[in-house]
Structures are given as structure tokens and as C-alpha cells.
């Protein structure tokens, strides 16, 4: 007899409790666990078994819950992270070690990692690194670079070290770390109220097409449970968004034609159960396909369709920096190298797809979603919704990775419009293919560069020409165009320089902000050519770089001179022991191996922190309550990088108390002042300074209550504020002070804006108040017969000025290297073809080799306690270091990224390798 399990109930044990649930035939276990049983600790990243975030134990066996029909779970024992943390001693140990090792950054993959690790530890109590890699190989992480996860599982049995007081310079665990390792963290898809309507977007399947919407009223009427359809006609204000004034060009809903595959044309809103069964392919829209240009050269040709009025030739904008006379210098150079380099679209690959919900609260619309920039979300929604700022509230959820793409709005306008139209709470989560098709990417670049040197090895002229495929809409393309010429020299003294960049429109997904804003691409060209130059000069590549490295008092290509804080030389010097050892190791290996060849490569990088020559303020609020609690309103979005920990550490140092005594209020446009966007490696520097100023101001206010001297010691204890000034001891009489409307007896608001100066027509000026510096070394092994490149180990030196939290510094370094590795070796987003996480490859736990992080501290003149930004600096040297190592191993220069096995093999053959 058939056992028809629908519409009957399915019963199983969930974390020790018998549950019974009604589900549709073949409903994914992941969906049932999250939506019907409240197990939001089971994360969904791809719904295809590619990311492993949804891993649960079924009768002790790790499985992707997204690939399991719930009916098959009948009678089984299901364990998720939240249950394991309560009941399983291995999970308890992992909770500790994951925090101690900085193994969770954004936290979205953490449940999958930890559940997989529990299954391993049940079989093997003390696994080695390889066993951990095998067991966790099915879970993707985009933040950590995996090595800390390996360490955390290998070291799960170790006794945890005592937590520190958390002063600046100490490796404090994340203050927000516990929810990430217990499954309690609430991301974009975890916060919608029960009964929220669901929104889905109708998107173009074509890169360039006209379209006509059919009978929408008829469609609505024909589908019971649908509440509304949104199109361009439903946008009350401006049907456009963007991030840069003058470049607000992307419609919320396309009006009559689309410019890229994945562009939104309409949205359907309905009851969750109805939406789950809705076939979007039947939506009434007809398409008229038009010719599309997908590459820069095609877009620049005379016959190319023009994407936007006023951007003739599909050229959106450009950037230019020049100093000295580059052509004359190249004319007198003893040695000149030239190269042409191309890079691909790179997908951010955060494991959390865009998600959130919106609802009305009175006449206000409130959007809860993952974001890197809550106030910019507000800025973007105001004209679209036609509402003033005070009627829009942005409540960021935890962010499961961003890396630049979540600076732009994505689903926020859809949700807000839907809530306004229906009056109901409306939620949405992008599908993996949707996030890959429609959200911004790293710009593909075509770069031609010439660099000269005199016979002593000093640089003598440099020219750079770069065209960047900016896709269909502007997003952060202008920023990339501006930043690249400023940075393309690398952190070197170049007296004669000319760099030009252009952002070119194509019918591709918009390219925008991605960790480094174009600088990783330019560094590939410059650092590769530096090795070619060194080879032609017969110089050691490290010596060549040191000879030409920037220094205090030496002007940059923008003519900016720093009196202190230029840390590139110490970074390069720090690599020397590893460099000399690796050269010897590789030589020894290569004498006894013919097919496998090893090489060592290095590369340097720099990155200006904050906006380029533009205002870029952050504001921090803090207050003292009458009950003696110090509250820090910290609005800098923590997308995994650690601002929820670093900013309080800085504030606590300035106030002169332990960070553990500070109560935190997280980002919310109603509660936290604008700390700017989490981008451009600016939070530690800019918001950190605002936090320092706020801590100092609060301290001054406290001390002034008792007329204590500036050196007095503030002690927060048992609801009192005590001040010890030499031999004198005071206790603030908080009861005498009257609280303000926010409940504070003392409130401070402090802002910081980095001092920059505008760039003139030749890009001369002071674009950034601060740069951070980096140098990487990598040893690779090339299988010359197959073209496979395997990095074996990295040494990464980073000048961070002052490490606020060395544990978090290492986390950023590891994660950036993993992304740089991916960019170098495997990542290539091709519209229409790699729109999922099995055709688009990011590094797995088996790919990232050990990383030795060398923290260099050359204090900055402006940074809080000398600190510099770090996030983006990391991946800038990684890819060129790998390419230089391939060259060292094989003599072959790879100029097209990613260096896939097929491309490397083709280059090897061309160079005459067997």
C-alpha cells in the first residue's frame, strides 16, 4: 500500500522534542524547520547543496536540510546547532573555541560549520587539520579564510584562555560573538513576523529587451491569496536609485525596457503559502529581445547600442592622475616593461542572500534588512517613496557578509513599497540565482601599463590605462574610476606618472563596490610588471620594491606628503626571512621534481581609508544613565569585520574603563547617529575616531562634575561612577542630575571627518588622510602538466598603525587572502552562465593554506591611537603575489584572470613547457 504522507502530518524528533508538522509533498526540510518549527538557526544560503549552511544532523548524519524532503525525516532524530549547543558536549566545546579562535566572523555559515564539526568530533575526538577539512568541506565561508575554523575544531578540546579586559591592543573576543556560535544571531531572513506576506520579484531573463506587461488585474484576480502587484507605476516618487549624486540611474522597476539580465520589472505579493506554490514563469510579461553588448570593446564600438542618454559612447565617467612627465621619463628609462591584463567579474559570494521585511508603524515605514549602510538606505528610499527622512526607519539585521555589495540597496524599495501598498508586513529573501544575477559585482578590468626604471633600479616613468566594465547602471563605478588612478602606482615613489581610467556601460549586471574598489585589479598589473622589471634589471624583487617604496616625506603620485605613518618598508622588510627561506625551499624542490614546480611570489599594496577627497563623517553618541550605566550607541555596521567590538574597545580606552562595562546599542536609524557606510576600510579609522572623541568627551563631563584633573581614574562599579584623583576620591551623585529625554544624565555626541583636500584636474591633492600598507608572500606549487596551481602557504605583513584587536586583524587578513586567492585562481562571474555556487566557484576549506600574519604597527597621525583601516588592503597584494609565484615557478606570466588550470596550461604550453 502506498503511504501517502500528504496532507497528513510528518512527525520527527527535533532537538530531543517530538514535533509534528504539516507540509506539502517534497517540501524542503530546511524550509519546514525554519518556517514551521522556528528553527531559525538553520541557515539557507543556496537551496542547492552548494554552501552547506543548512547542515543538520539526521540520525547523527550531517545532511543539507535544503536537499531533504521533510517526509523522509519521519521518525528521525534531527539535531540543529541550537539543540546541540544545549545538549552536546562537543558543541559546548566548539562554542568556546570558535569564539577564542575568531572562527566566526559574520556568522552565517557558522551553524553549518559547527554542526558538521560536531559530527566529526563524535567520530574522532582529536581530529587533525586534514580530517577537519574533509568533514567541513561541504560548508562555504566567505569571511574567515577557514584557517581559524580549522584551528577551532582541532583545538576544541583545549582549555579556553581567560578573557582579557579588552583594552586597545588586546585580543578580545567579539563582543557580539556568542549569538553567532549558538545559532541565535538574527539575520535578514530570520526576523519577519509570523504571517508576513511574501514578495517575489519578476526579473528579466534577457540582457537587453523591451517588454510589455499583460493583464495584471486579471492575473491578480486569478490567483487567490495574492494581495498586490507592483510595477514602475506604483513608485510614488522617483523611480530611480543609485549611490552617487549625478549617477542616480537605476530604476526600482524598469519601465519599458531592461538593460541587464536580472533587472526587476514587477513584484508579486501574497500569502506565504500561495507564493510558495506560485509559478513565476506564468507572469504576464512579453519580451522583445534587443542586441546586447556584454564587453567593453563591443560597448565602445561605434555601432553599439547606447545604454544611457548623456553618456556618449557608453562611457560613464573616467578618472585621471598625473604628475611629472611620464612620457619623457619613459623615454629616458634604461628598462621598460609593458603589459596588458584582464580580469573578470567577481561575485561577492556572501552566504546570506539579501533578506528582510518591511512594515508600517503608523505613518512610518520600517525596513528590517541586512545592509552595510543604514543611513544611505534611508537616503535612497526617501525620493523613491516620496517620504521625509523621519518617516523611514532602517533597522539593520545581522549581516551575513557584505564585502561591498550590501552598501547598495537591493530589496529595500520593494519591501517598503509593498508594506505601504498592502499595509501588511511583507518579507523577501533573494534566491541564490537572484542575488547573483542582480546585485553588484567587482568590475572586470582591461589594463595596459608601462613602467620604466633606470639601470640602478629606480622607477622612471609609469603610465596606466584601465577600462572597467561597469555594467548597466552606475552604482559605485564612478568611485572605482576615481580611486584607481590614485592607487595604481602602488605604494612607491613615482615622480613621473599618468593614469587614466574609464567606466564603460554594458548590458551586464551593474558592477559596484567590492573590497578594494578597483585597486586589486590595478595592483595585479603593477605588481606583476614590477617582477618583470626586477628580472630585467637582474634585481631581487624584494630589494627592487624596497628601493622604490614610499616613505615619510616622499610625495605620492597625488603630491601628498605624509610626515609619519608610511609603513610599506617595514611590511616589505618583515617578509625577508620568509622570502629567503622560500627561495631556497623552492630551488631545492625544483631540482628533484620535473612536473611539479614551486615558486615564491610577493606583492605589495596600499589603500586610502575613507572617501576620496569627499566629506566622510561618522558620529557616535554615548550617555550615562542615572543608574550608572554607560551606553554606547554604535551605528557602524558590523558585517563580520568586527566594528561591534573594535569601536567599543576604542571608546572604552578613551573613557578609561573596561569595555565589558559598556552597554551597547546597535545600529538603528532611530537610535544611532550616522556612522557612515561600512566600506572603504573606514570604520576603525573614522568611526573609531568619533568613538574616541565621544569617550574623551564623556570622561571630561564626568570629571568636571567633581572638578577632577584630566588624569583622574574613572571607575564604574555597582551603579556608581567613582573618580579617583590622586589621593582624592569622589562618587558622582547621579541622583542630582536630571536625565534628558533619552534617559541620560550626561549625553555626548561626537563626530569625526577625516581631513582631506580636493584633487585638481591632474589628481593632485590630498585624497585621503590615511593609507594602510600591506605586503604578501606566497609559495605555490604548479602542476605543469595540468596547469593546476596550489598555494602552499602565505606570509602576510600588514601595517595597521595600531592593532586595536590583533585577533580581529588576523581574521581580516585570512578572509581577504581567501578572496584574493579566489580572484586569482577560480572566480569568474559570467552573466547567464555562472549564476549559482556550483558553476561560480569560491575557495573551500580545502583550498586555503596556512597563513602567517605579521602585524606591523607604524602609527598614523590621524587614526585612533594610531590605528589604520585594514579590510580592503588585504586582498590587494594576494592575487599579484600568486601570479608572481607562478612566474617564479615556471617562468610564465599569466595576464588573464582567473588563472584557471586551462589558462595556466595554455600559457605553459605557449612558453614551451612539455
Amino acid at each position, binding site marked *: 500500500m502506498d503511504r501517502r504522507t500528504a496532507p497528513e502530518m510528518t512527525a520527527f524528533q527535533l532537538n530531543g522534542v517530538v514535533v509534528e508538522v504539516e507540509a*506539502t509533498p517534497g517540501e524542503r526540510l530546511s524550509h519546514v524547520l525554519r518556517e514551521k518549527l522556528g528553527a531559525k538557526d538553520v541557515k539557507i544560503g543556496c537551496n542547492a547543496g552548494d554552501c552547506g549552511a543548512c547542515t543538520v544532523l539526521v540520525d547523527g548524519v550531517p545532511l543539507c536540510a535544503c536537499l531533504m*524532503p521533510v517526509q523522509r525525516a519521519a521518525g528521525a532524530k534531527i539535531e540543529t546547532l541550537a539543540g546541540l549547543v544545549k545538549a552536546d558536549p562537543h558543541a559546548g566545546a566548539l562554542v568556546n573555541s570558535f569564539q577564542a579562535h575568531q572562527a566566526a566572523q559574520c556568522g552565517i555559515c557558522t551553524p553549518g560549520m559547527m554542526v558538521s564539526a560536531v559530527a566529526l568530533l563524535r567520530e574522532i575526538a582529536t581530529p587533525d587539520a586534514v580530517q577537519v577539512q574533509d568533514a567541513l568541506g561541504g560548508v562555504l565561508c566567505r569571511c574567515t579564510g577557514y584557517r581559524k575554523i580549522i584551528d577551532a575544531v582541532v583545538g576544541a578540546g583545549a582549555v579556553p584562555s581567560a578573557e582579557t579586559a579588552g583594552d586597545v591592543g588586546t585580543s578580545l573576543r567579539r563582543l557580539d560573538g556568542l549569538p553567532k556560535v549558538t545559532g541565535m544571531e538574527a539575520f535578514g531572513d530570520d526576523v519577519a513576523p509570523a504571517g508576513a506576506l511574501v514578495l517575489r520579484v519578476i526579473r528579466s531573463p534577457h540582457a537587453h529587451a523591451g517588454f510589455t506587461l499583460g493583464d495584471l488585474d486579471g492575473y491578480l484576480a486569478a490567483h487567490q491569496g495574492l494581495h498586490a502587484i507592483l510595477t514602475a507605476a506604483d513608485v510614488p516618487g522617483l523611480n530611480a536609485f543609485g549611490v552617487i549624486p549625478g549617477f542616480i540611474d537605476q530604476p526600482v522597476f524598469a519601465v519599458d525596457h531592461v538593460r541587464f539580465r536580472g533587472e526587476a520589472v514587477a513584484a508579486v505579493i501574497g500569502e506565504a503559502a500561495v507564493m510558495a506554490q506560485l509559478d513565476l514563469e506564468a507572469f504576464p510579461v512579453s519580451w522583445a529581445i534587443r542586441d546586447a553588448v556584454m564587453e567593453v570593446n563591443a560597448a565602445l564600438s561605434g555601432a553599439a547600442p547606447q545604454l544611457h542618454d548623456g553618456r556618449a559612447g557608453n562611457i560613464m565617467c573616467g578618472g585621471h592622475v598625473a604628475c611629472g612627465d611620464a612620457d619623457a621619463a619613459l623615454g629616458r628609462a634604461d628598462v621598460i616593461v609593458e603589459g596588458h591584463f584582464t580580469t573578470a567579474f567577481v561575485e561577492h559570494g556572501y552566504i546570506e542572500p539579501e533578506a528582510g521585511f518591511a512594515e508600517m508603524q503608523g505613518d512610518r515605514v520600517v525596513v528590517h534588512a541586512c545592509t552595510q549602510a543604514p543611513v544611505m538606505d534611508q537616503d535612497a528610499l526617501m525620493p523613491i517613496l516620496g517620504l521625509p527622512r523621519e518617516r523611514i526607519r532602517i533597522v539593520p539585521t545581522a549581516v551575513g557578509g557584505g564585502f561591498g555589495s550590501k552598501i547598495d540597496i537591493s530589496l529595500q524599495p520593494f519591501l517598503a513599497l509593498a508594506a505601504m501598498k498592502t499595509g501588511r508586513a511583507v518579507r523577501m529573501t533573494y534566491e541564490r540565482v537572484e542575488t547573483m544575477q542582480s546585485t553588484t559585482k567587482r568590475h572586470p578590468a582591461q589594463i595596459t601599463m608601462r613602467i620604466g626604471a633606470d639601470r640602478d633600479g629606480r622607477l622612471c616613468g609609469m603610465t596606466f590605462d584601465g577600462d572597467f566594465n561597469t555594467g548597466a547602471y552606475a552604482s559605485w563605478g564612478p568611485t572605482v574610476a576615481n580611486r584607481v588612478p590614485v592607487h595604481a602606482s602602488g605604494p612607491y615613489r613615482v615622480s613621473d606618472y599618468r593614469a587614466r581610467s574609464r567606466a564603460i556601460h554594458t548590458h551586464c549586471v551593474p558592477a559596484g563596490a567590492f573590497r578594494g574598489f578597483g585597486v586589486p585589479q590595478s595592483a595585479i598589473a603593477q605588481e606583476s610588471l614590477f617582477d618583470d622589471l626586477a628580472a630585467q634589471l637582474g634585481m631581487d624583487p624584494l630589494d627592487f620594491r624596497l628601493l622604490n617604496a614610499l616613505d615619510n616625506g616622499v610625495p605620492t603620485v597625488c603630491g601628498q606628503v605624509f610626515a609619519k605613518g608610511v609603513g610599506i618598508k617595514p611590511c616589505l622588510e618583515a617578509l625577508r626571512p620568509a622570502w629567503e627561506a622560500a627561495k631556497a625551499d623552492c630551488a631545492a624542490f625544483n631540482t628533484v621534481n620535473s612536473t611539479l614546480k614551486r615558486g615564491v611570489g610577493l606583492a605589495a599594496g596600499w589603500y586610502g581609508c575613507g572617501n576620496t577627497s569627499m566629506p566622510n563623517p561618522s558620529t557616535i553618541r554615548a550617555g550615562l544613565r542615572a543608574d550608572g550605566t554607560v551606553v554606547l550607541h554604535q551605528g557602524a555596521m558590523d558585517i563580520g569585520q568586527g566594528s561591534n567590538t573594535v569601536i567599543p574597545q576604542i571608546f572604552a580606552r578613551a573613557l578609561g574603563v573596561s569595555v565589558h562595562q559598556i552597554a551597547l546599542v546597535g545600529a538603528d536609524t532611530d537610535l544611532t547617529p550616522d556612522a557612515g557606510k561600512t566600506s572603504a576600510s573606514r570604520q576603525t579609522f573614522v568611526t573609531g575616531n568619533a568613538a574616541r572623541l565621544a569617550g574623551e568627551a564623556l570622561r571630561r563631563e564626568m570629571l568636571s562634575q567633581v572638578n577632577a584633573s584630566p588624569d583622574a581614574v574613572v571607575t564604574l562599579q555597582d551603579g556608581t561612577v567613582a573618580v579617583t584623583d590622586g589621593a582624592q576620591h569622589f562618587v558622582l551623585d547621579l541622583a542630582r542630575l536630571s536625565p534628558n529625554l533619552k534617559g541620560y544624565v550626561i549625553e555626548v555626541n561626537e563626530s569625526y571627518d577625516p581631513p582631506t583636500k580636493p584633487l585638481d584636474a591632474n589628481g593632485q591633492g590630498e585624497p585621503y588622510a590615511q593609507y594602510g600598507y600591506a605586503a604578501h608572500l606566497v609559495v605555490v606549487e604548479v602542476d605543469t602538466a595540468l596547469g593546476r596551481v596550489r598555494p602552499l602557504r602565505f606570509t602576510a605583513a600588514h601595517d595597521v598603525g595600531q592593532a586595536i584587536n590583533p585577533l580581529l586583524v588576523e581574521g581580516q587578513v585570512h578572509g581577504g587572502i581567501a578572496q584574493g586567492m579566489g580572484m586569482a585562481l577560480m572566480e569568474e562571474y559570467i552573466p547567464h552562465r555562472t549564476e549559482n555556487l556550483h558553476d561560480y566557484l569560491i575557495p573551500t576549506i580545502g583550498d586555503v593554506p596556512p597563513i602567517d600574519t605579521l602585524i606591523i604597527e607604524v602609527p598614523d597621525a590621524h587614526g585612533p591611537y594610531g590605528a589604520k583601516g585594514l579590510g580592503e588592503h588585504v586582498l590587494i597584494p594576494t592575487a599579484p603575489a600568486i601570479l608572481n609565484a607562478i612566474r617564479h615557478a615556471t617562468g610564465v606570466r599569466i595576464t588573464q584572470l582567473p588563472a*584557471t588550470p586551462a589558462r595556466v596550461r595554455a600559457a605553459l604550453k605557449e612558453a614551451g613547457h612539455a
Partner: protein
Amino acid sequence: MAYLVAASLTEALAALDRGHGAIIAGGTDWFPAQGSRPLQGDLVDITRVEGMRGFMPDGSGWRIGGATTWTDVIRAGLPPAFDGLKAAAYEVGSVQIQNAGTIAGNLCNASPAADGVPPLLALGAVVELASTAGTRRMPLADFLQGPRKTARRPAEVLTAIHIPAQPDKAQGSFLKLGARHYLVISIAMVAAVVTVEEDRIVKAAIAVGSCSATAQRLPALEADLTGRAVRDVLLAGAALITPAHLSPLAPIADVRGSAEYRMEAAATLCARAVAHAIGKQGKSNG
């Protein structure tokens, strides 16, 4: 629309005979293919069908139940001829995928890059298909007809794979080339089953995946290897492989690699897979 958990083959076949049911086993290919589209028709779950999971002696060969998972393959006690199949099992997706995905599902999904196919072809696998009309068998090579295309009729279940008896000393190997570790679709892969006696290859079976619409055995190469001294084969390496040996292959160019590259990688991998099998002779304990 219903979800039917079949307890027996008879139940499963009866359900499929009604004409609107799709088979689901591990679900590792079914769900990604389905995406977020709503389900049409019934799902017939065959993972609890009696006797469809595990390895059983079958005359002088083996019978592998269709619903055997890749983890089952890894954990089974099998002779060294199956080492290639085991190595392939380790390469299927990830632990999570190996715990769910089935050997029959891998074959019925008919991806040109199915990890399980080359080792099974090298072992001379025969598939068993059952329907209410009866049971039929055919060589795996005939069952696979093209990308996503097999000889399975809509109401048929791939119930088992039969592996004929292998020489006592037969040693299997498998190599997969991808752009990363774990969770990767291969650019090319090769399985070999090699029998060496008195330092000569007496039998060789070699199959290549991801280099043609369906994975292919290389009979000319197998014939050329047979009778050769192990030393000569190891010394020659990829130089041993001629274009004629690879003539069954017709690789395409895609995001993972060019056709030319695949052809060349196939030759390299063939030589290495044979060398691995030779190197492991007598050292494998199953």
C-alpha cells in the same frame, strides 16, 4: 500531489505506473533542478525500498543497490578493484552530499560530469531496470545516452548495478581534476582498473568523464596497455597516450576549460590513473 514513501519495489512501481510521479532518492540533484518552482504530480521516494541499498555478492561479482549512498560505498568492505569507485565517492560533492546522494541517482541524472560513472564503466557495470512489465538489464555504457538522457523509461526504477567478477589482483584508481577542492564539478576525470601479473599489465579498463556527452571507455588504450611491462608504462607516462587512444572523446569548451585543454588533461590523467593503480598493486586492503 502526494509524497509516497515506497516500502517495496512493487509499491514504487505501482505508483509510477499511474503516470504522474517522479522518483526521488537522495534529492541532491532533484532539488537543485526543481529550484523554487512548485511541484507538479507525485513524488515517489525509493530510499526505503527493501533491498535497494548496499553491496551484495552476486554470483562471482557484486550487486549494488540503486539507493546505496556514496557514504555506503566509502564504508563498504570491497576488493581493491573498487578503489576507484571509492575514490570517486569521496569526490562526490561533500560529506553532506555523499550522505544523501545515491549511486542510481548519479547515473539517472546523467550528467557528463557524474563522478560515479567512470569508475563504474571501468568495472564493466550493468544496470538493472525494473518496471511493472518486468526487469531488464543493460550495460551502463548503453544506459547513458547523452547529457541528462538515459534509456530509463518513465515508469522504470534503476534498482541495482551489477559488477562482474574482477580479477583477484585488479586494482582500481580514480583522479578528478577540478578548479578547487571539494564541491566541484570536474573539468576531466579518469578511472582505471588495472591487473598486473609478473610486472606486466594483463588487463586494463580505463574510462574518462567530463570529456564527452557521456563518459567513455578507451578500448584502444586498454588494448595497447595489455601485455606491456609495468616499468615501460610508468616510464612513458602521458607520452604513451596517442590521439587514437582518445578518439572516443569529444570534449566541449565551457566555463571550466577549453576542449583542447580537456583532451590534453585526459591524457595526463589517464597516465596518472594507470600509474596510481600500478603503484597501489598489493598495497590496498580494500
